[in-house]
């Protein structure tokens, strides 16, 4: 039975298929995740992957993952910021094709593509990586009551509403806003 299980196990899943993308944003990019639901063999490996493509100047929203990730830039360049638990930026720099970068578990990360876009593959040390974001449709701030946000940051109701809602129709991938068309990477 073990032989039958392993011999017939599916070991391949294409992460570049745009029709299989978990997130697709016009002018923003796409994100394909490969987890244990898409590739059951990953259950025994306890590993996963994320394939990301950002269009020029698009942004990957500040977020954190419940596992380590090792990112490899497959094309383009961009700027990445990684923040650890004490609020200290432990990486702030440009990345380009051919480079690896470790993103430790739960460390908050923001990515912004340069003028040629940014493409990467990340390997995660979890077969079901879960990402929490600080902005967008599933933002943790949006999921908190407005009064909690107001008091946590000592801001007024309007600012709290803006903070929670201004990007509520967007996802983890943010298309560039008109005032941010110029790359900073």
């Amino acid at each position: 039975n073990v032989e039958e299980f392993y011999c017939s196990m599916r070991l391949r899943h294409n992460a570049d298929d745009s029709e299989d993308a978990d997130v697709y944003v016009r002018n923003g990019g796409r994100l394909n995740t490969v987890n244990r639901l898409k590739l059951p063999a990953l259950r025994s490996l306890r590993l996963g992957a994320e394939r990301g493509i950002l269009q020029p100047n698009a942004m990957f929203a500040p977020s954190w993952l419940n596992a380590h990730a090792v990112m490899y830039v497959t094309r383009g360049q961009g700027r990445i910021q990684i923040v650890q638990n004490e609020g200290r930026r432990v990486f702030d720099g440009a990345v380009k094709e051919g480079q690896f970068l470790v993103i430790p578990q739960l460390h908050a990360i923001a990515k912004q593509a340069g003028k040629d876009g940014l493409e990467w593959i990340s390997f995660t040390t979890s077969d079901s990586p879960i990402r929490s974001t600080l902005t967008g449709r599933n933002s943790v701030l949006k999921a908190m009551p407005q009064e909690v946000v107001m008091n946590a940051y000592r801001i007024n109701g309007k600012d709290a509403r803006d903070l929670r809602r201004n990007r509520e129709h967007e996802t983890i991938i943010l298309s560039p806003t008109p005032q941010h068309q110029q790359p900073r990477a």
Partner: protein
Amino acid sequence: QLQQSCRFDRLNAQEPTQRITSEGGSVELLNVEDSEQFQCAGVAPLRETLNPNALSLPRYTNTPTMAYVVEGEGRLGVVFPGCPETFQSSTSRGGEGQQSQERSQKIRRVRRGDVVAIPAGVAYWLYNDGNRRLQIVAIADTSNHQNQLDQTYRPFYLAGSAPSGAQKAAGATSIGDNILQGFDTDTLAEAMGISQDTARRIQQNQKKGLIVKVERGLRMPGPPSDDYEREREREGN
């Protein structure tokens, strides 16, 4: 390796050794680096006390946390990624209706005697809406497989910051500024679609600590106390 070399042949009772005092309460920690028995058990104990109308600021941690409410009552908000936002009330009682209410509810009432489980990496906050202090004790399970960082308890605060001097006092546990502080202001403003001024304000360290006072109290949806009481009575023994 450490756990294999543990013998537990000399045990002693201990109390928290460090205290971080904020305007709305305190967080007390035990420096696990100095305690072989807690290192061997792979847990970090902590105690948090909130004064009435105090809000313990949103954070997530690198470890699953198991807490017990020693005294008082309050509201607990746990933010699971992808779940519907904030509290969703349901008039259904029992059966399917009750189950769906439990799945979508993001603000839970907690009171003395409750045990609370919080997974690693999930943001949560606590608010004392009672008229007496709310105290919880908890262990952070640093040796749990959900923790892939080192064996140190690491809270990632989304707001506020530890008061000056707390970093040193916290010993092995590293608590500093909130994580938004670490991002470039311009990046944060763009990502959140807010002005630079607002972005700067939410990054500011008010140095009022990790638990803040809420002047006029929080008004928010949630299960009222009397419903909660009825629920407990129905559950029985």
